[in-house]
Every structure is written in structure tokens, then in C-alpha cells.
């Protein structure tokens, strides 16, 4: 998808920028990987499709990248993340060139496996919002990652160049946004039971934290030893403490890209916690993170005339 537009654009801007952070086909079928294009001959490797899962904004934060002017391929959610990073002063506007990729959503390999068994790449022919499997046609939206099912922003809210046309806002899928609704419908004890069970599985590999572009603390609170905030033992309670701590750190910042959830090797729906926090932020502050550069982030803004006394 977008290969031609990508190649044309890349040849035009490589020189103006020192590198293009994009996607290249991975080593396994149905996998794309982050790729740093720095030379003319790398341009042909750049590509984009329904498996460009990682949020590349994370790569803007490496020491080497911070010093350079780079272009980055962003989906709707990724662009929102970049905006948050800009607002938080982590990256500089003049160092960035945003290549927007209108996104039909990322396809979940496990959902494909559930339907088609052992997957063989030649069986599939991919198009923008449909695909065929051995000649039979299916809709992409029936196989989306959970994080993409609930997505409301397929287009980057801000970009320097766009690959292809902007997409219409996707319809809210039944069971999509309700991903959170399903948990909220449960009585409190059942909710606790659900989280207790999920947290029991967590091995604290920190794939969620490390895949998240907004988790950029030089030293994470879980790694601190003086004082030590949580035990090294991956018990249910300690795990929950980590995930809750992370969710709170993300409050009003999370762009719901789902990178954390897709990274989890144990399939824990960790996205639920930050998602719920963001819902509260929407409700209380009428704010969504990363939609534009101007609206101040409610939890990161201090005003002397704040109407709430406790904060003054």
C-alpha cells in the first residue's frame, strides 16, 4: 500500500532530512518492522500495509535521532503521539517531517489464525479495506486488532505530506468501542476478578512500556531502588500496581494507539486501563490528547487563576 507515493516522496525529501523512519517488510509473513531509511538504495524497502503495527514515534526519542532532522511515517494514532511529544518538548518541530498514512486499521494475526488456521501468505490478496482468502472476499474490519476496532481517527490530524486520500471517519463498530463497555457493564467484584486474573499472567517483561512512545522516562519508577516502589516479584498485586501506575502517568497523554496491548506477549488487554482513564479525561476536560498543537493538556497545565482551590 502507498509504495509508489512513498518512493516518490522519499526520493524527494531524503537529503532535506537525514533519515526516514518508516516500515519495511519483516522477516516473517504478516509482519512489518521499523526501518530507518538513510540511503538512496534503502528507499525501495519502504512500505506500508495492514501489518505496520508498531508506533514509530518511539524511535524519535533515541539519542541519535533527537539530534537529526528526520521524516517519520505516521498513522492517525502515531501522529497524535508525535503531537504529544511536541507539546511535551521531547522533539522539535523543525526537526520533524511527518509523512501521514491514512490507515484502514491493523489486522490481527491471531484473529486471522482463528478463522483460517495455519496461515499461508499466497492464500491472501490484500486490498485497502477488503482481502480475499483463496478467492473468497472478507472485510478487513472483521479482523482488526482490538485497538484498531475502537479507532476514531484513521487520518493523522497533522502532517507535512499525506500518502493517498484522507479516509472517512470509520463507523463505530458494534463491540468495538464496547471493548471497554463490556468491562464497565460488570459489577465491581467481577471487574476485580477479571483484572486479578489478567494481572496474574503478567511477567513484567515491560514490552508494553518499551513499545509506548510516551513512556520515555529516563528511569522508570519500577526501576528505581531508592526508594523502591514495587517488589521485583511479579505477583498479581505488584503487577497491578505497575499497570495502574503507568495508566496514571499516561492520563491525558495516551493517544489510544494500542501499541502496548499489541506488544504484550501474553495477550493481556492492558489497553483497558489507560483507555478508561482517557474516557474520564474526555468526560471531565472535553480533551483528547494529540489532536492539535494549541489546546493545552489539562493535566500538564498550571494556571494561577485555576478555579479549583486545591491546586492553587
Amino acid at each position: 500500500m502507498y509504495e509508489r507515493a512513498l518512493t516518490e516522496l522519499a526520493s524527494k525529501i531524503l537529503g532535506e532530512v537525514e533519515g526516514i523512519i518508516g516500515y519495511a517488510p519483516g522477516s516473517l509473513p504478516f509482519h512489518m518492522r521499523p526501518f530507518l531509511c538513510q540511503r538512496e538504495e534503502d528507499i525501495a524497502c519502504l512500505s506500508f500495509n495492514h501489518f505496520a503495527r508498531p508506533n514509530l514515534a518511539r524511535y524519535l526519542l533515541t539519542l541519535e535521532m533527537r539530534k537529526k532532522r528526520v521524516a517519520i511515517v505516521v498513522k492517525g494514532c502515531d501522529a497524535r503521539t508525535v503531537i504529544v511529544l511536541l507539546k511535551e518538548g521531547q522533539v522539535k518541530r523543525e526537526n520533524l517531517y511527518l509523512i501521514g498514512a491514512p490507515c484502514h486499521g491493523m489486522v490481527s494475526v491471531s484473529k486471522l489464525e482463528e478463522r483460517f488456521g495455519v496461515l499461508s501468505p499466497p492464500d491472501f490478496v490484500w486490498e485497502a479495506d477488503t482481502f480475499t482468502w483463496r478467492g473468497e472476499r472478507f472485510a478487513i474490519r472483521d479482523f482488526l486488532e482490538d485497538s484498531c476496532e475502537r479507532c476514531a481517527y484513521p487520518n493523522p490530524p497533522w502532517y507535512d505530506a499525506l500518502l493517498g486520500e484522507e479516509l472517512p471517519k470509520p463507523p463505530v463498530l458494534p463491540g468495538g468501542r464496547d471493548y471497554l463497555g463490556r468491562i464497565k457493564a460488570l459489577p465491581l467484584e467481577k471487574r476485580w476478578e477479571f483484572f486479578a486474573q489478567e494481572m496474574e499472567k503478567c511477567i513484567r517483561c515491560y514490552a508494553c512500556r518499551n513499545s509506548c512512545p510516551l513512556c520515555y522516562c529516563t528511569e522508570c519508577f519500577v526501576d528505581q531502588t531508592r526508594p523502591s516502589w514495587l517488589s521485583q516479584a511479579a505477583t498479581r498485586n505488584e503487577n497491578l500496581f505497575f499497570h495502574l501506575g503507568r495508566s496514571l502517568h499516561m492520563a491525558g497523554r495516551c493517544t489510544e494507539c494500542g501499541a502496548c496491548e499489541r506488544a504484550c506477549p501474553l495477550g493481556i488487554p492492558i489497553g483497558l486501563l489507560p483507555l478508561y482513564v482517557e474516557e474520564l479525561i474526555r468526560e471531565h476536560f472535553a480533551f483528547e490528547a494529540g489532536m492539535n498543537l494549541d489546546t493545552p493538556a489539562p493535566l500538564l497545565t498550571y494556571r494561577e487563576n485555576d478555579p479549583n482551590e486545591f491546586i492553587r
Partner: protein
Amino acid sequence: MKGKFVTHEQVFTWMERERGLVVITERAQKKYHHLLPSHLITVKTAKELFFSPWEAVYRYTLQGKTWVIEEKVEHSSFPSFLVLLPCEAKAILEVTDVNFMTEDTPDLGYARRRRGVTLIIVGCERIEQTCFCSLVGCSPFWRHRESVFLFPWKGHFYLEDGEEKLSLSPFEDPQKAQAVETFFAETICTLPLPLPANFPEKLYAHFDDPLWQKMAWHCVNCGACTYLCPTCYCFDLSVDGKLRGLTLHTWDSCMFPKFTLHASSHNPRPTGKERVRQRVMHKFSYFPLRNKYYGCVGCGVCREICPVNWDIKEVVEGMVRQVER
């Protein structure tokens, strides 16, 4: 002929009967759910049964002016059999056992749990996209004299060493057993060739290769690959509690910055490059140079779960080309 045969029912009934004592790995369960009982106790990785994600070694309290320290010994019943795939078994027998069961200083917790357990290896009928066991001295039919070996063959299970260990009564069929052996030998011939014989030495000499920087670029340095790796055995000791608490023995990962952080705040592995290099070097150079086997069994789990498709097989093949240049 060493191998004999048992029926599916014999194995199924035996596992049903012993089910409180039998544990199966998730991967073996997924592969053979149609032949084995479905409600056996499962573990995500084979190593976690012996090398727990976390365990308390000591409990301590300050009473008056003296520290009272008691060793924590678990008394819970422990399984006697572990059903697993060949690569998972090789990881236990030739990597974690080698590391934790040394004669002079065994890891007591590991040794205590490991001693009473017989491994039941179920050979692989199908090779997954992520598998690369033949590169590192393993195979879909890897066996070991101390373990039972099963392989589904035309409505039966081919069985080695299970007669006494599982008290099954197999029947002999030399002709059929010969056919199984031929099938194994022929299949192995079709698999990719092992890494070059002196690869560990050559890789060792490439410690400063600039290629590491390039290879490490897209790794996010999480610990998913190391924690789910059947051979990764690094651990940390920490204390939890001030005047009263526990000394903990927990999994640790060379992917984390804290893994090598010195008290002086110097870190000899400050960036992803050094950490990624360490992971590859340990498995493909340091470990085999000391213990003759690779520290990787080619199970492919890390390739499957990596959030950014950082692929150890690809990196190792890249290094093979690099060292042979």
C-alpha cells in the same frame, strides 16, 4: 530396534490417570491437543517450572538487636512428569540444567524441583514458520537418554525409553520402527544446515563489529524475548522489606538497563547495542565456548512474540555471513 509402539489410548489413559502429576507446556498442548487430555496443568514455558519467575529464598526479621533469618523451603507437592517439545527439552537438559545443577554449587531451589521430574518429549510432526532448530543442533525429533520420547505415527505413538519410566506396555514392530527411523533421518536431511562448526570462536572475534549497531536499531529493549526464552536463565537477587521481609530470587533480563548498572552509576552496557550484542553473544558464543552446546535451541518463540519483529535467526545468519567474509 530401540523404539516400540503404544496406542493413543494407552498414552491418553496414562496421562488421565496421573494427571495431578503431569504438567504440559502450552506449546506442546497446542500442538497435540487432539491426542492428549485437554485439562492437564499447563505452563507457559518449561523453565518456569524449575526456575520460577520469582521465589523467596530467605525470610528475615529484626528481633531486638539480632537478625533472624530463616530459609524458605517449599513443601508443596511437585509434578513428576513434564510433557514438552524437543526444543524445550533441549533447553532444560543442555542449558538450564548445565547452569543450575553444577556439582559444586547447584542452585538449591532449581535442583530440588528438577530432580524428581521426568521429561516426556513429544516430537514435532510439523515445523512452524518460526522454527530454526536444525541450525543450533536440535531437531524436530531430538531425544535424550534420560527422557521419554513419543512421536505420533500412523495411529500409534512411537515410544522410546517409556516402558519403565511410565510403566506402559508397548508392543514391538521392528519393521515399523525402522520406517520411523528412516523418516526421521530423511526429514533431518531436508532441514537447513547447522551453523558452521567454529561459529562461536569466530563470533567472539567480532565483538566490535559495527554491524551490531545496525542490528540493534529497531529493538525496543523489552524483556519479552528473554523472559519467554526457554534457555534464558539470568536472575536477580533483591530484598523486599526493611526490618522484616524477603530475599527474592527473580527473573532478570540483559535487555534492561538496570541489569548491568553499577553502584557507582556507571553502566558498562549503556545502550541497546551493547545489550542486544550481549544476548546474541551469550547464546551463540560465550555459552557454547564453555559448555559445548548453543545457548539457543531454535524454538522461535522470540521471533513469534517480538513486538517489532527483531529476529534472532536473521541476525545470526547475518553474523555468519559477516564472520565468513
